[in-house]
Every structure is written in structure tokens, then in C-alpha cells.
């Protein structure tokens, strides 16, 4: 039963791959998203420093995500 479910899921995934997903935001509609004020992390040298400040004083860590853009090594 479990094997059959997996097979169906694999078929569905394959079908989705064939049909392709139509991007609902076209490249020419990304003017706002391309604006520099929309950068997740416009100043990596500063934000990586702040992560360091918090991680030295709090128990939690991680979850900073891929927002950085290159090496904001701190």
C-alpha cells in the first residue's frame, strides 16, 4: 500500500515537472522587487556583526538564511 502511494506521488511529481509551472510574476513585472530597497540584506558587513552581537548574548543561533549575498564574514 505504502509502495503504491509512493509510486502515485512520484508519477504526480513527474507530471508536474513535464507540464512546467507558469511564472505568475513575469520578468518585466519585477521592477519593484529589483529595487535596492527590497534587498533582504543590503549591508552584510553590518548585519553579520549584529548576528554576532546577539549570538554572543542569547542561547539561540542559526536561521539567518541565505539573505546575505556573498561572504559577510564577521
Amino acid at each position, binding site marked *: 500500500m505504502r509502495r503504491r502511494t509512493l509510486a502515485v506521488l512520484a508519477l504526480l511529481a513527474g507530471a508536474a515537472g513535464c507540464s512546467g*509551472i*507558469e*511564472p*505568475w*510574476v513575469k*520578468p518585466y*513585472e*519585477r*521592477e*519593484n*522587487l529589483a*529595487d535596492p*530597497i*527590497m534587498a*533582504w540584506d543590503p*549591508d*552584510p*558587513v*553590518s548585519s*553579520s*556583526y*549584529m*548576528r*554576532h*552581537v*546577539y*549570538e*554572543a*548574548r*542569547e*542561547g*539561540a*543561533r*542559526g*536561521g*539567518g*538564511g*541565505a*539573505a*546575505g*549575498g*556573498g*561572504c*559577510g*564574514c*564577521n
Partner: protein
Amino acid sequence: MQLKRAAAFLVALLPAAAGAGVLPEDRADLMWHYYDGGGVTIDGPSLLVRKKFAEKYAVSASYYMDMVSSASIDVVTTASPYTEERTQYGVGFEYLRGKVTYAASFSNSRENDYEANTASFSIAQDMFGDLTTVALLFSLGKDDVTRRGDPVFADEIDRRIYGVDVTQVATRSLVLGFSYEAIAEEGFLNNPYRQVRFVDPDAALGYSYEFERYPRTRTGNAFALRARWYLPYRAALQGDYRFYNDTWDIRSHTAEVSYTHPLDQRLTLDVHYRYYTQDAAEFYSDLFPRANFQNFLARDKELASLTSHTLGFGLAWEFRAPKMGFFDRTTLNLKYDRIEFEYGDFRDLRATGVAPGTEPLYAFGANVVRLFVSGWF
């Protein structure tokens, strides 16, 4: 010492940076950073340079320095004020091939009693009409821990981080992000200088100290969600949330909201508020009932239950740099944050004349400043 593990940890996350599809801009940042809070002052320079080649390759190099002067609550109650320095170097390389970005980086952080080496790798791919970017991250760290004044003591930490990060374009004005990281550490995870206190009727203060003892393994999970929204009058609003838990029973929630507003063509204002709360580690206590009360003992305030509030702002001013024509654009930036830390079960032992365990709870505020120049070339 308290800063270094965080530093070692942090660099591990950075290659995550690789966004797919396009490499980061050629850019140099020179920063002076300053922290003052809880009797600790830290300042120093930081430099970050990134350069692309043939739109396919990018290299980066960084230098960072902390100059620490500490008379923190832990230091004034159990040791003597001290000064120390930490220096960190990093290099990174990125390769863009089609819609896939491969990144690798290495960093070294060094102090007189601690050294951390970290290598990190990531792969990021754009998919679904470039509306989605998925990145996988892996980081490997090895720290060497020693103790000043103790030539015999030497130990290590091995650290592995596995992460996945998804960025999704939701609408013409909204981007969403999700990330998950699993962090596994093994080795000497406590601070070799910190001590716990326990009830001791024979002591003048009513308590005595013994060294902390932590488990030699720790595994944590961090889940983060974020959204950034472009407002119609050209401004940006961002919300972030993170949940963290680990095998030491620390659970935390972090929420942040930030707003970016261009004041005119040259000046941009950023304001933000951050809230953080955590439960104490399972083996933490402000005052143990007796010596060697249990296998693991901690009174490190970073493992106590705590809440912090941060309110901050930033100003970026775009200017034309005289005699620096090789920069296409330059900005001068000032960022200031005020952080208030409040502890739920860590007491201020500077208070005297009260029964042990009834001292007032500790709290402190910190000022954090970053002043930096950025140039794009």
C-alpha cells in the same frame, strides 16, 4: 571568551549567502563597530571586499577585529576585569553556472585562548521561472579551546551545520523566505572560566562557587520565516520570525519588524524593532542547593531565561567621493541600536546584605553602533 563561540558559529552561516542566478555586486565596506553594555566595551574595524570576474566567478575577503575590555557582571563577581583581542580573516569563492551558484568559504578566528576554523559550502538554484531559489548549505567547524594560566588544559569542539533556504517571489511586491538549520556540536561546550554558585552555610556570603559542567553534545534546530513587502510609495516593510530549540531544552522565539524609507534621492532611513525570548537550559540554575548537585551545572546568563528588546535606526547617505573616481557609488552609513536584556532567573550578585537567592534579577542595556563607508566599483 564568551564572544568567540558565537563568532565561530557565525562565520559558518555566511556562505549561505549564495543567491542563485546572479552574483553579488563588486563592493567594498569599511566599518567601525562599537558595543557598550553590561560593563563590556568592544570596538574595532571590519573590512569586506567582493569582486566578480567574467560574471561567472566572484571572490571575497574579509577582516574583522574585536578589542574587548570586560568588567561584566560575571567578571566582577568571580574574576578580574580583563582586555583581549580577537582577529578574524575570511575568504570566499563563488561560481555561477546557468541558474546554479556554488559557493565555498573559509574563515579563521583567533584569540589568545581560542581558535576557530570553519569551512562552508553551499549550492543555490533558481527554479520555477526564477520565482523560487533553493539553497542547500553545509558547514564544518573545528575550535581549539585553551585556558589562560592553565598550560595543561586543552580541548576541542567539532561543529556541523546543515541548512536549507527557500526564497519565493509571491507577487510583484512581496518576497517570502523560509530557512531551516540543524546545528550539531560536540566537545568542550562550556566557558572554561565561568562558575556556578551553590548554597554553602559555611561561606561568609552564604554561597560558594564551582566550575560549570556542560554536556559534550548539543543539537539545535532553527526555523525562520520572513517576508519583505514593497510599499506603493517606494518604501519597504519586512517581518521576520524564528523559532529555535535544542537538546539542552532551550526554546526561543525571535520576532522582528523593520521599515526602510528613502527620505530623498540621497538619504535612506531604516527603523526596526526586535523581540527575543528564551527558556533556560535544563541544567541551568542561579543557585544550586549544594556542591556537585547534578551531573551538569550552568550559571551562564546566556543559558538563563531571558528577554531582550531592540530598537534601532540606520541612516545611509549617498555621496560623491572626492579623488575616488573608481567607485561608481559611495555611501556613508550610521546605524544605532539600543538593546535591553532582562533575565528571569539570573540574579545580580553585586547586591549584598540579602539572603542568597533573593538578590534582584539582573538586567542591563547596551548601545551598539556601526559606522561604515560602502563603495560599489
